[in-house]
């Protein structure tokens, strides 16, 4: 993966830059020692590493503003960082950059149950947002699988999703307002406790802009009362086409489950060996979860079971209680760990129209043979967000490159059938050079024009999202 040549002039001025940042930050908030900056050399895309020039950990919007103003003045690139859990390399540093971490900013500023929102500093982790309100029966809906560790700042940057977004939407649908610092240090407030921020929907374009438009320091998030209960059913089928039809039939019957998860045979086999969840060995396994009171759940599950039964399942299992529900979810939740047990893997994130599921799975199977690499498929089937896991051996020369090539082919296939390169992980560096597959030059130009307004000097996380040669004239200017 190519990264831009770091600026020798910036690296030469390291002492001056660190001194200026130290003027506005407490001593322990500036990290410039070469051993210590290694802690920031990568995110969860660990195949790529590069220690930054230095890292700063501000504690307030004012400090973030000071840092950005100084970096802007000195022409120093900045890479914002939440908890560093990006699978796409969204927080990968360059050697000439300042990493701006928001980890120290994790306070709850305000909780308001009457108006159903919470205001937090964005270094707070996703799960601890729910943690702050669950005692009162509320929760924050977007639930990326890294939710124990990932920060709201990163969720906003990547517009993160989760298993339950079929019903509750992704980050952008639950974000009501932000305090954001622009690269020149200007602090802007957008939206708030009211719905539909006025003027142009800047909030909408900031969410998912991968830290390229500004650093969001505070967020107003929608919170909801928890449902009374939730329960899954598990069903197994002999082929993925039938499973796809079951998903379609459930949706067409007017039921809106909170989650519909899909696993294919390689994934089931790996998971069973690892977690022994008692899954049936079959081509396609579905977990469908519904919410409500006991009576409501019973009524919905009855309809779902009727639909499932019509398609001759090899197994159909309804959770009668929390224990059985836990066992149904056990395998799905261990899937990534189980695959990791067998091998190194790369997790993809393309989305396809649900109707293309059987075709895409068939093609991935064929490509798996062509490339000689195994693939397991885990899939948010309700919304078409695929997570093919390609297995490779990191110690075998050339295997990572082969795996990346295979991954790129799968993502091209997703675009070909009417889908997209990434459903919830973001572009980062990982899918940056595939953007031309999905977008025409004019489409990318329009997106880059937005960055021109927020960050005219292209100092913020500039080597991400857009193909390097496409963004080159702007980054060089």
């Amino acid at each position, binding site marked *: 993966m190519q990264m831009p040549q770091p600026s020798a002039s910036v690296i030469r001025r390291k002492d001056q830059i660190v001194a200026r940042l130290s003027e506005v930050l407490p001593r322990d908030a500036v990290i410039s020692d070469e051993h210590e900056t290694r802690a920031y050399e990568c995110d969860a895309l660990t195949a790529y590493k590069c220690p930054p020039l230095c890292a700063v950990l501000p504690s307030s919007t004012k400090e973030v503003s000071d840092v950005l103003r100084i970096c802007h003045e000195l022409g120093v690139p900045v890479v914002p960082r939440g908890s560093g859990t990006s699978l796409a390399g969204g927080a990968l540093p360059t050697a000439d950059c300042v990493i701006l971490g928001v980890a120290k900013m994790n306070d709850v500023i305000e909780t308001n149950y009457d108006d159903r929102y919470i205001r937090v500093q964005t270094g707070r982790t996703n799960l601890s947002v729910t943690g702050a309100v669950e005692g009162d029966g509320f929760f924050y809906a977007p639930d990326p699988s890294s939710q124990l560790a990932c920060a709201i700042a990163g969720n906003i940057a990547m517009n993160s999703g989760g298993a339950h977004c079929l019903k509750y939407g992704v980050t952008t649908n639950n974000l009501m307002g932000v305090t954001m610092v622009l690269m020149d240090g200007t602090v802007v407030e957008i939206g708030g406790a009211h719905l539909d921020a006025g003027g*142009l*929907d800047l909030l909408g374009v900031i969410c998912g802009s991968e830290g390229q438009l500004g650093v969001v320091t505070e967020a107003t998030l929608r919170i909801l009362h928890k449902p009374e209960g939730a329960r899954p059913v598990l069903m197994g089928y002999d082929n993925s086409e039938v499973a796809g039809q079951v998903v*379609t039939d459930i949706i067409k019957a007017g039921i*809106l489950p909170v989650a519909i998860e899909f696993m294919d045979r390689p994934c089931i086999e790996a998971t069973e060996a690892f977690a022994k969840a008692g899954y049936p060995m079959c081509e396609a396994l579905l977990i469908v979860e519904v919410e409500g009171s006991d009576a409501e759940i019973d009524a919905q599950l009855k309809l779902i079971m009727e639909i499932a039964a019509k398609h001759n399942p090899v197994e159909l299992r309804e959770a009668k209680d929390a224990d059985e529900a836990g066992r149904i979810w056990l395998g799905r939740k261990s899937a990534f760990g189980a695959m990791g047990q067998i091998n190194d893997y790369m997790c993809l994130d393309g989305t396809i129209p649900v109707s293309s599921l059987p075709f895409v799975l068939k093609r991935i199977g064929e490509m798996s043979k062509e490339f000689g690499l195994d693939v397991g498929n885990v899939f948010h089937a309700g919304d078409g967000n695929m997570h093919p896991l390609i297995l490779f051996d990191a110690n075998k020369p050339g295997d990572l490159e082969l795996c990346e090539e295979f991954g790129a082919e799968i993502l091209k296939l997703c675009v070909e059938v009417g889908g997209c390169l990434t459903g919830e992980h973001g572009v980062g560096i990982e899918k940056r050079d595939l953007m031309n597959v999905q977008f025409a030059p004019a489409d990318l*130009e329009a997106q880059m024009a*937005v960055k021109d307004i927020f960050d005219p000097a292209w100092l913020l996380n500039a080597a991400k999202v857009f193909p390097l040669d496409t963004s080159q004239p702007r980054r060089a200017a």
Partner: protein
Amino acid sequence: MQPKSEEDLSQMIIGANGPLRITGGGTRPIGHCDGDALSTAALSGISLYEPGALTIVAGAGTPIAEIEETLAAENQRLAFEPMDHRVLLGTKGTPTLGGMAAANVSGPRRISVGACRDFMLGVRFVDGQGTIIKNGGRVMKNVTGYDLVKLMAGSYGTLGVLTEVSLKVLPNVETTATLRLHGLTDRQAVQALSAALGSPFEATGAAHLPKGADGDPVTMLRIEGFEASIKYRAEKLQALLKPFGTVDVAWDDAATWTAIRDVTAFADQPGNVWRISAKPSAAPELVAKLDATAVQYDWGGGLIWALADEGRDLRAALGDFEGHATLVRGHAEVPAFHPELPALATLTNGLRAKFDPRGILNPGIMT
């Protein structure tokens, strides 16, 4: 001007010598601008509908009625319930998909499922230089590149002319019930609505009329779903709202919610109509400052519709508050859209200058 294709539209914009006034069906003349009319009405037709994938794609000029009929045939719907402005604004014509998207038009269900913008999956548009641009797509989860779909939603044609929109749709519901409380003050009403919206019983409408049909206050909640579930939730909500009084339950009361959606109560009354977005709990206090002729609360109090004398500037009456006010009907010596703070205005004006450097697309409409 009425382009027949995207290319046609692109050529017209390139060839334009002055400002263009962009319209779909011309049913939502909010804000004011002069210019040659450019209608997207001919860019009409549903190009893709996959009920199993909950997605529909259509040209910007497609009548909303056509989309709703198509969805209804598969027992699906536009869940955000777009308002039909014709009654309130006294306009004729056919509301279109493009107009709805450009004005980010939602209805009462916005409080639970989200706004029009939350259901927009993709757009195609032509910017002020005639460049054809696409963003988003037709799948529900998509974080590939910047979300210009949201930016286009509610931009009132000032960044580009929409040619195609793809939407997420949802299943229709088996049945609906409306719960009513009577005689509450505005403050009590918003508290009752907040209690219901903060419960697990999923209200999909939450409105309050200080003067209902019979002249007395009425506070309304809508619940939707399978019949057994509605019965259960209605009982639970009745118990929850007991401190606020007796709760009546009416089944299949669609007309009530259409009237709230379209603010029909103000239709035949003279005066300006303002639409105020606010923090729900702050709404009664704001309304007390307005000295309005009539008021309707929607979105649990978060959306205030106010009828006021012509020429009055309600923003002056509101003072500084968390939210914004739009003049939807009538004229005043003030801009239709809420003035932005300087730092935001810099960003907004910068974006407009990028997408429409000649300033010819609905110029001045949002200021």
